[in-house]
């Protein structure tokens, strides 16, 4: 136990040092103060199993903890679990839980509470969007007050990684039962911070949990404030009304370099940005057209302009930091090839391919600008796209409709493989069992070979073997081109020098567990 704590502390300290290296020599942290993070969008819900987006998860993870945790360095360490053993057949998992932990409302965290949370996620009636994370679990039993046993229907390799996910967070059974639907607005977990208030569209406020089981936080209070406008968020950082600004427009980096009061840090992210096609409806049920668009877009130019070189052109549907990644291919920017494919499919300058392209604004780095770039780039190949900009919530609802009524032709989205495992990055997006609304496959992509490979990847334990399976699956996927493959983002975050120990996690989280304010 002590060793684990030491490990956590060492990792946290390393992270903090890396972040603050440019700012100041390490000094003793001081307690107290309120740290304010300027975030781009509001949380959608704070009920852990219902969360599907990073902004919500960032807020939630300060209050609600999972059994395990993915460190910024990509290691899985125990949180509310102490450790686990897996039976030789790979189907029975015995998880030992941390003892003496209480939820913020005083309810003890024990095996019953853990079972309650896992059962709740597994219950189809809960409609947890990420149920697939643990869907292979067939039963959860309480062995003793601090041990649970899970049985899966087959060996399920990514289970440990999935236990780090915020959706599998441990929440107070008392509060969940008592508050019902209202729970989503006032979560109760075991984390270093306690919920205080949520003013919709404005801010979420949390205070320090003085009964925290681990090393207690330094800050008295933490606020996540919603500032949707990129320019306004940067201005607030410059004026000092916030300590941290997420998604600084990359083109501003050069100008902000001279700032005395804050630094702009560029950190890795597990997020891939793509444009999905609905492959079940014309025109994009024709693979030639999907490939034509892939060839018509100069991804390098997008990365160098709107993203100012802070992103990486995709060469696979997942990013290199994900377990299971391998370099597959990139559709080369080739207008002649694009036009040849269009001609083959019966289109020409006189009869151009026309499509409607839906995209959000303010959710990803310069998303609307990138959508407009794509529109301008494909125009040179004689493709006419009509852009539809939508508000984040409405946009998700529109693209989330089931296949028979989903007439979205092209949509821009990003996916953060926050568990660090390829299963999460591929299964949810390309397996035919995960068509929206019960999964995240918004392209309605279905390829039996890919399905079989992804199933095998889940149930294979040997990592080298899994890597081979995923490489094969990704080759088929990229050849089928259900997406226009774009790039993987970096996180561009502005942090004031007074805010120390702020960690930018690759899963696109701002972590303030060990943050403190310099006076």
């Amino acid at each position, binding site marked *: 136990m002590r060793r684990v704590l030491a490990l956590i502390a060492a990792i946290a300290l390393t992270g903090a040092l890396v972040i603050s290296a440019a700012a100041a020599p390490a000094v003793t942290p001081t307690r107290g103060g309120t740290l304010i993070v300027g975030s781009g969008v509001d949380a959608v819900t704070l009920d852990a199993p219902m969360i599907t987006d990073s902004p919500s998860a960032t807020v939630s993870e300060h209050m609600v903890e999972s059994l395990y945790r993915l460190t910024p360095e990509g290691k899985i360490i125990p949180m509310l679990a102490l450790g686990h053993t897996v039976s030789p057949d790979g189907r029975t998992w015995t998880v030992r839980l941390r003892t003496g932990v209480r939820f913020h409302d005083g309810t003890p965290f024990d095996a019953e509470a853990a079972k309650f949370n896992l059962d709740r996620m597994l219950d189809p009636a809960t409609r947890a969007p990420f149920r697939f994370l643990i869907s292979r679990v067939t039963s959860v039993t309480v062995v003793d007050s601090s041990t649970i046993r899970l049985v899966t229907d087959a060996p399920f390799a990514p289970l440990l990684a999935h236990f780090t996910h915020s959706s599998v967070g441990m929440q107070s059974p008392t509060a969940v039962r008592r508050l019902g639907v209202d729970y989503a607005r006032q979560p109760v977990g075991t984390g270093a911070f306690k919920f205080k208030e949520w003013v919709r569209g404005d801010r979420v406020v949390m205070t320090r949990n003085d009964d925290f089981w681990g090393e207690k936080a330094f800050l008295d209070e933490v606020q996540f404030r919603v500032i949707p*406008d990129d320019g306004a968020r940067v201005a607030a950082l410059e004026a000092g009304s916030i300590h941290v600004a997420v998604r600084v427009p990359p083109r501003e980096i050069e100008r902000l370099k001279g700032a005395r009061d804050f630094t702009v840090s560029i950190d890795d992210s597990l997020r891939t940005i793509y444009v999905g096609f609905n492959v079940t409806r014309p025109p994009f049920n024709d693979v030639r057209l999907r490939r034509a668009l892939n060839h018509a877009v100069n991804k390098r130019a997008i990365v160098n302009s709107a993203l100012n070189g802070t992103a990486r052109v995709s060469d696979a549907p997942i990013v290199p930091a994900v377990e299971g990644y391998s370099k597959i291919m990139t559709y080369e920017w080739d207008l002649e090839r694009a036009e040849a494919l269009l001609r083959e499919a019966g289109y020409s300058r006189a009869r151009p391919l026309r499509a409607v392209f839906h995209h959000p604004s303010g959710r990803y780095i310069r998303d609307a*600008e990138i959508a407009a770039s794509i529109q*301008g780039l494909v125009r040179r190949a004689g493709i006419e796209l009509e852009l539809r900009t939508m508000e984040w919530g409405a946009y998700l609802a529109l693209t989330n409709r089931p296949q028979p009524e989903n007439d979205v032709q092209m949509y821009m989205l990003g996916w953060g493989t926050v568990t660090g495992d390829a299963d999460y990055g591929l299964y949810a997006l390309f397996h035919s069992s995960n068509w929206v609304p019960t999964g995240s496959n918004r392209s309605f992509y279905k390829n039996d070979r890919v399905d079989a490979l992804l199933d095998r990847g889940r149930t294979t334990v040997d990592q080298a073997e899994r890597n081979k399976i995923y490489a094969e699956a990704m080759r088929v996927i990229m050849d089928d081109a259900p997406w226009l493959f774009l790039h993987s983002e970096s996180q561009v975050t502005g942090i004031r020098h007074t805010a120390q120990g702020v960690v930018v996690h690759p899963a696109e989280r701002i972590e303030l567990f060990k943050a403190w304010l310099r006076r």
Partner: protein
Amino acid sequence: MVWTQFRRNRAGLVGLVLLSAFLSAGLFAPVLAPYDPYEIELESGLKRPGPGHLLGQDELGRDMLSRVIYGARLSLVIGVIAVTIGVGIGVPVGAISGYFGGLPDLLVQRLIDVMLAFPGILLAIVLVAILGVGLVQVMVAVGIVSIPVYARLVRGQVLSLRGQEFVDAARAVGATSGRIILRHVLPNTLAVIIVQSTLQIASAILAAAALGFLGLGAQPPAAEWGSMLSNARQYIRLAPHSVMFPGLAIMLTVLGFNLLGDAIRDALDPRMRI
């Protein structure tokens, strides 16, 4: 006579010059614009004004000058169509309401009171919310917003005209109400309608730009001044030119229409001069 009056008004002449520039930009955009306003050049995004691109380039590397010129064309279309809708519906409604009076007048006027009670831009936003986002919808919305302005104006004119002797005379020789309104009453309100329309085009352009700025109007990549401003404002510190020129274009055009409108009013009716 009117022209002599008008010529004396220097502000009016300035307005005329501004509007001529605006009109020629709008009418001859394809000839005047040095580049295709939609051709992107990502590598030179946000480039400052220089010899190749006199007003610089926007975030996608499109030529600002060409976009501002094409923006004039869009604004011109928006202004003219919105005002046509306002005149086309507002004038007949006002004339009938004022000429006949009675219960219909009362009902129409209360409806107009309700419409006027909302600030124009708010009403336009509500209408766009109902009609949907887009350029055509914006023209219709802004047009509808200007209906009560005309209806109220024309009704007032008709009320003062209908008791005049020439109207009585027309009625005495057996002219129908329709003929009296069309041939005798309306022509006498023409001057006010022209003055009002000049000013109304300015407000229509401004309202459309505001809606464009809010993302409710013209959709990308349309070269519309309001949406150009909205995109560029993200980079206001980095590339002030990308905000300045669409902003200037809106300002000068609206100023031009207002100066001209005032001058025409003064010329047509010297007594109203303040």
